[in-house]
């Protein structure tokens, strides 16, 4: 059981908090709209973290014991649905239905309004990427290297695509992005693939990074970040590999920059923001890959999430702090410790300069930017 | 009860069925393919193969059975003698 693991299992090294800021640099302050102690078992394991999903009138997320929760936009619990296992990649909401895959290899479709189960289906392996909903289909990656396309109505399998797996994998798989009829996703062997979203036929295949190094670990080049579409370009990033841009149609490589990254890069007014797995933050020109600025203050930090909110870059780390960065200059503009139990998953922007953050012990905060 | 003496078995087991399969004129290789080589080594008379068998059970007396094969100078089997009689056709 969980407690035993944490009590006896050697705990992860304590995450290092960010150093304090000088008063004059602080230009962004934070205020708490509300915070809600959530129902359920929230001793979250950092590598089994859920995702926060927000719609106009509800918030959805899943805990460590297999409960799927729906909250009102002001944090009040509306319904709980008991799944048959943990959901390491969290739920996805589309057209009034919440889709969630569990580590027992089951995919559930639950009505978003009342939390009633519509249908469920066996996947045969543990889902390892969040579910993407597009063209009336559900797309997700499984830990055995299969990519599934399921019919969104009943979960029947339309097509599957698979690549051979290296012997050692990273705990996360790449998300899937669909544009028109083409689907883009990364695999555990450092490859980026474009598939026809209707029948799964392979359009093109590009190599983001080649395994190098003399032991199994050094040779890991898993693609853990979801590809980013930018005009006629698709940008993908591999762990211990490169960030690279490829032409959407042919898969030819435009540019590549050596960097190891886990978090999905963010595209914002002509700049590409990427967080290296060693904690450095880069701003690059998406067309050429040249680095415009680099913030090395976060070296050695373990970041849990990076999002764009109200024109600011918003980061969160396992020490439980949220930090804002000015996208133009790369300087820190604000910092706040939300909870000493750490922040397990990326903050989610909910508009009107507000965002949601989930702490390690299961408290959901809605914060908003304010004067310092 | 008399004391327990260790069962001692010695030498080659030659069954009547196997003995029935060898006949005069066979060379040494053919004989040893059927009966195996004799355990009792006698370098002084290599033309005489002795298949000696004895068994002393934990309780009771010892039984001894010998089969002696003579080979001619050119190595072909000349005579078969000893306690075990080859019974043609009988299932061993």
């Amino acid at each position, binding site marked *: 059981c969980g407690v035993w693991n944490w009590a006896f299992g050697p705990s992860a090294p304590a995450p290092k908090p960010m150093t304090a800021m000088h008063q004059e640099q602080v230009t962004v302050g934070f205020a708490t709209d509300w915070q809600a102690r959530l129902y359920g078992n929230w001793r979250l394991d950092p590598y089994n973290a859920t995702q926060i999903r927000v719609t106009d009138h509800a918030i959805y997320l899943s805990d460590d014991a297999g409960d799927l929760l729906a909250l009102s936009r002001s944090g009040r619990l509306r319904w709980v649905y008991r799944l048959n296992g943990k959901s390491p990649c969290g739920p996805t909401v589309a057209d009034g239905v919440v889709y969630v895959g569990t580590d027992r290899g089951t995919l559930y479709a639950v009505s978003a309004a009342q939390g009633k189960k519509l249908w469920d289906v066996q996947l045969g392996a543990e889902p390892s990427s969040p579910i993407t909903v597009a063209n009336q289909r559900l797309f997700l990656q499984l830990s055995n290297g299969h990519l599934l396309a399921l019919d969104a109505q009943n979960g029947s399998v339309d097509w599957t695509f698979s690549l051979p797996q290296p012997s050692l994998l990273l705990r996360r798989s790449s998300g899937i992005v669909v544009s028109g009829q083409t689907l883009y996703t990364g695999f555990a062997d450092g490859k980026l693939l474009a598939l026809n979203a209707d029948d799964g036929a392979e359009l093109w295949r590009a190599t983001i990074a080649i395994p190098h190094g003399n032991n199994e670990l050094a040779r890991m080049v898993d693609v853990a970040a979801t590809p980013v579409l930018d005009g006629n370009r698709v940008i993908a990033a591999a762990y211990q590999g490169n960030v690279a841009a490829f032409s959407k149609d042919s898969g030819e490589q435009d540019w590549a920059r050596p960097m190891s990254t886990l978090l999905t890069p963010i595209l914002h007014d002509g700049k590409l923001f990427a967080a290296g797995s060693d904690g450095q933050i880069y701003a690059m020109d998406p067309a050429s890959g040249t680095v415009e600025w680099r913030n090395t203050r976060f070296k050695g930090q373990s970041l849990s999430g990076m999002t764009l909110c109200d024109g600011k870059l918003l980061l969160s780390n396992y020490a439980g702090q949220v930090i804002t960065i000015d996208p133009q200059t790369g300087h820190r503009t604000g910092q706040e410790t939300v909870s000493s139990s750490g922040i397990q998953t990326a903050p989610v922007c909910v508009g009107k300069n507000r965002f949601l953050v989930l702490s390690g012990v299961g408290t959901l905060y809605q914060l908003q930017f304010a004067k310092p | 009860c008399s004391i327990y003496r260790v069962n001692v078995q010695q030498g080659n087991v030659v069954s009547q069925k196997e003995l029935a399969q060898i006949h005069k004129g066979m060379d040494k290789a053919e004989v040893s393919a059927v009966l195996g080589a004799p355990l009792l080594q006698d370098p002084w008379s290599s033309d005489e193969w002795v298949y*000696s068998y*004895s068994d002393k059970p934990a309780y009771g007396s010892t039984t001894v059975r010998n089969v002696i094969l003579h080979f001619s100078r050119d190595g072909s089997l000349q005579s078969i003698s000893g306690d075990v009689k080859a019974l043609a056709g009988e299932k061993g």
Partner: protein
Amino acid sequence: CASDKPKDHLLDSHAAAAVMYQKGKSAQDRGDYGTAVRDYQDLEAMYPYGPYAEQAQLNTAYSYYQQGESKAAAAAAERFIKLHPVNPHVDYAWYLKGISQYQEIEGANWNPVPLHQAFDTFETLVKRWPKSAYAADARLRMEKIIDLLGKRNLDICKFYYVRDAYVASANRCQEVVTKYQLSPAREEALYYLYLSYKRLDLAKQAQNTAAILRYNYPQGKYTKKLG
């Protein structure tokens, strides 16, 4: 030597090696074999070239032997043989290896492994260097090993005879009679071979063996027993 080194540099390393060698040799002569071995090893690590290194390797083997460290002595001798197969002293190395293995022999009825090892090493020495200074002593020790092996197999033959395992006793005594003729155990082995054949009801073989016993040992104790 390789010409790419300045001449004088080589000379003083030669002298330094000689000093270290002398240090080891005097320790060895004092009988302090432990320090001697350490000195020789330092010498080899510092100056692995030249006649001093070779002599040091031989002396290391000898010192180990004197200390009673038979396995280390045999290994050191073996290393010399591999490095310098045609060195003029290599017969001494073979001899050292042989006597180290010989040192491990406990007796006829104990571990037979050193018996065979020592015998094989001495046999190589005697075959390849028949006129070596050490060949004579090697032959003497080989004869002693034959006696021990003869006695060992005779004892095993009698072990099985007493337990009515006559095929086993016959074979073991046969081994003594054929393979170890020179060992004194041959006479008694012939007698027990005769007894085993009798117990196996093999009269012809028994007579044959008795005849050989009478012929070879007319006044022997066991010939009388034949009656």
